[in-house]
């Protein structure tokens, strides 16, 4: 912990975070067309999920608008998109960089891989906020749903939720240092989130045992609070009083701690076995 008190170390960490954020933007610019087509795909996926069964007629859309159901689902869907990126971002990056052969050079950074991964998380989150914010904006315009954006409270809950999700991301990132290709594992987990966290179906409809599992996942509690704030327009004080925020903090802290500890341990194992950077 002592190095956190060393100003030089803190400045170094800030520059590493800057380097990784910059790199995320360079990658975005380089593959801009791919990113835009990804957004179009996301929008089509959303429309498919929620309107395909009813047809795409304006009447169907306006019928759905009459309830809060679509707004609930929209918040769930967009948060799930963030989860999709944060849970698999580190493992994908480690796999790709090991494959192209730059992971070893990155691992030679004095600030360590965990700081490096945080840099990526920050860069990715900023980019996701811009890109998925655009998708959300288009969804709101085209479906005419009503959502509130209490900046401080929703922002805080969103960040706390992301921390838990990145905790899981660290765990998978650590596994990727050793096993490299985790594609199908993270895909199962990420799509499992769509169903199990209540993003499209309220978890109250699940059997009780599944509800228990669902509530332990890193996105569920955050999603519940965001819906309270953004769809049902509940004040933040209500969330504080309900104890939901405390649950979210505990949940995210647990996921993050487990993620960081397992990443550190798996990095050590990778160094022992000579797998750091080897594909």
């Amino acid at each position: 912990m002592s190095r956190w008190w060393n100003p030089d170390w803190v400045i170094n960490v800030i520059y590493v975070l800057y380097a990784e954020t910059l790199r995320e933007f360079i990658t975005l610019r380089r593959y801009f067309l791919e990113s835009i087509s990804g957004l179009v795909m996301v929008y089509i996926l959303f429309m498919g999920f929620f309107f395909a069964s009813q047809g795409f007629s304006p009447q169907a859309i306006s019928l759905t608008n009459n309830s809060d159901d679509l707004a609930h689902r929209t918040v769930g869907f967009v948060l799930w998109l963030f989860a999709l990126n944060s849970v698999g971002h580190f493992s994908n990056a480690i796999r790709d960089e090991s494959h192209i052969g730059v992971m070893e050079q990155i691992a030679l950074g004095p600030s360590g891989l965990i700081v490096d991964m945080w840099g990526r998380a920050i860069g990715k989150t900023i980019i996701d906020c811009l890109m998925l914010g655009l998708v959300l904006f288009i969804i709101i315009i085209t479906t005419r749903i009503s959502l509130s954006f209490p900046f401080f409270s929703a922002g805080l809950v969103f960040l706390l939720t992301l921390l838990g999700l990145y905790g899981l991301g660290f765990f998978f990132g650590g596994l990727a240092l050793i096993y490299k290709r985790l594609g199908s594992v993270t895909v199962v987990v990420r799509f499992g989130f769509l169903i199990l966290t209540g993003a499209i179906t309220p978890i109250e409809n699940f059997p009780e045992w599944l509800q228990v599992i669902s509530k332990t996942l890193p996105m569920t509690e955050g999603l519940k609070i965001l819906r309270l704030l953004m769809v049902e327009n509940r004040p933040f004080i209500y969330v504080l009083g309900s104890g939901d925020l405390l649950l979210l903090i505990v949940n995210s802290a647990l996921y993050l701690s487990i993620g960081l500890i397992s990443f550190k341990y798996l990095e050590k194992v990778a160094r022992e076995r000579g797998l750091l950077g080897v594909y």
Partner: protein
Amino acid sequence: MYAIQTENLTKEFHTLFSKKRALVVDDINLEIDRGEIVGLLGPNGAGKSTIIKMLCGLLKPTTGKIFINGRQMENDRSRILALIGAVLEGSRNSIWSMTVKQNLTYFAHLKNVYGRAFRERGDELLNSFELEDKRNEMVKNLSKGMKQKLAIVLAFINDPDVILLDEPTLGLDVHTARLVKQRIVHMAKRNNKTVLLTTHRIEIVEEICERVAIINKGRLIAFEETEGLLSSFGGEYYIIKLSGRPDTAILEGLSIVRDVELDQSAEGEFILRLILDRKDHLFKVLEALGQGNQSRVLAINRSKPKLEDVFVKMVES
């Protein structure tokens, strides 16, 4: 205090579900002073790259200790990494989908170099390695030599005290290899940096390294000054050009002659290479060659032993 020091450095690998172990590095002790350029030689699979990876903290030794500038790797890894620059063999060492300038910015910041220091050092290195006009070029569009020069620039960007180069001239043309060699010597000597390099181009080691460590099957079989190593394989090296095929059996029968080798040149002349313990033994050799009456001596040249000969003999023995 040594710039690089290893104590009983050992690395064993074993697979996850098997108890079978492979001893790759076996009890290596190295002591390298600040400002020295040391060559690490060994046949393929000798353990050179494993040693380099352990020295830069990418691989944890099974047993033994590593000290860089007096700091122990296991206790002080992040501080040590700030003192090291490495070019790793089989690794891209740079991001090909970014430009030279973007790579420089990215890796410099990862290695805690920023602001004025970064700009000045970056410019100096790009000029020094003749890459200044390639700043905005995508790395993937550069030639192999330029990519390798960029890898070395990135390794030097944090002005490291210890530079570890695993096959820095692999696949380079003569001009680029010479430039890389000159720059390594320049950086090391001007700024008192320590360089440990592995290469299969033994003439580079012979030319620029003050000491040579020879590794075979994970063990250190020699670690001496280059000159000392060459003279320890003492004796008088002779190259004798002959008009016809000599009877080498007669020569091999003489106890004063060592390591007789015979080649034929494109012009049909026979080239006899041999080592004598003393200069005056040459007369006995000439006498013996005359016995066969089949060949005439065309020329006699004395030569120094080459590091390549020493290396091959040590590894074979």
